[in-house]
């Protein structure tokens, strides 16, 4: 995989089918799917539970706004990822062009996905710092690789955003 930057886009070139599949899985990975801890991490409490009024108001007014924000960001990413669908040669390497204007949506969605996966698998600090583990071993290893790959993409996008501001 090669990452290139033009005035308008960030291009992920020469994506092999494995990395392309991990990218396709980003939107699905943002869903807590009934894992309460993951849901709680995405929509964490704004204050200590003793602050009942603040927490109740938050649930009523703020949380729906956050859900809309996260959903909108995810849909933007999903639309960009449509480039990876319907390839004539399914096992050929491909390119994904991310508009720089979508950078914030990508950062947000990648973060949602990383938090949900990390919470579902309850990764330790040590595991999260292990960038050299092979993704082949187990579903857990694959998910750890996914978290780190998405983190790497976040770093690239951040670098681009900072370079343009």
């Amino acid at each position, binding site marked *: 995989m090669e990452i290139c930057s033009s005035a308008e886009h960030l291009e992920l070139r020469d994506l092999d089918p494995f990395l392309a599949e991990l990218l396709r899985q980003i939107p699905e990975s943002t869903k807590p799917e009934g894992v309460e801890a993951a849901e709680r991490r995405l929509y964490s409490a*704004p204050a*200590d539970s003793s602050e009942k009024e603040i927490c109740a108001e938050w649930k009523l007014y*703020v949380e729906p706004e956050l859900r809309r*924000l996260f959903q909108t960001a995810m849909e933007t990413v999903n639309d960009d990822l449509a480039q990876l669908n319907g390839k004539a040669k399914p096992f050929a390497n491909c390119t994904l062009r991310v508009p720089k204007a979508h950078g914030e949506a990508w950062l*947000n969605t990648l*973060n949602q996905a990383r*938090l949900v996966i*990390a919470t579902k698998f309850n990764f330790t600090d040590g595991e999260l710092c292990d960038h050299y583990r092979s993704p082949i071993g187990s579903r857990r290893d694959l998910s750890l690789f996914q978290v780190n790959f998405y983190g790497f993409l*976040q770093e690239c996008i951040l670098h681009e*955003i900072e370079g343009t501001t």
Partner: protein
Amino acid sequence: MEVAPVIEFTANKFLVTSGPVDNPVIEREAETAQQVDLPWQVVVHNDPVNLMTYVTMVFQKVFGFTREKAEKHMMEVHQLGRSIVWSGLRERAELYVQQLHGYLLLATIERTG
């Protein structure tokens, strides 16, 4: 003898008292808007998943911190587990926490003291 209540305003609170001993003394403290609003702080908590560069960027965007100040708070979160990034009125503190949650940071508002 009926005596009009004396209302004193002292450091953020009203003291309402009646005068002479004929009437029972009623002493009451009423919370002022200032008391309700003043002492709140925004605290960001450590999270092993959020990238350090990302947290720094969020602090710069939300609070307008310089890169150095944002990095200082980020390191405080990383090393001490939490950092007080802002303090002031409750309404504003809630707004900041909402923005931080929009970036998926773990943030809460707390009463100071």
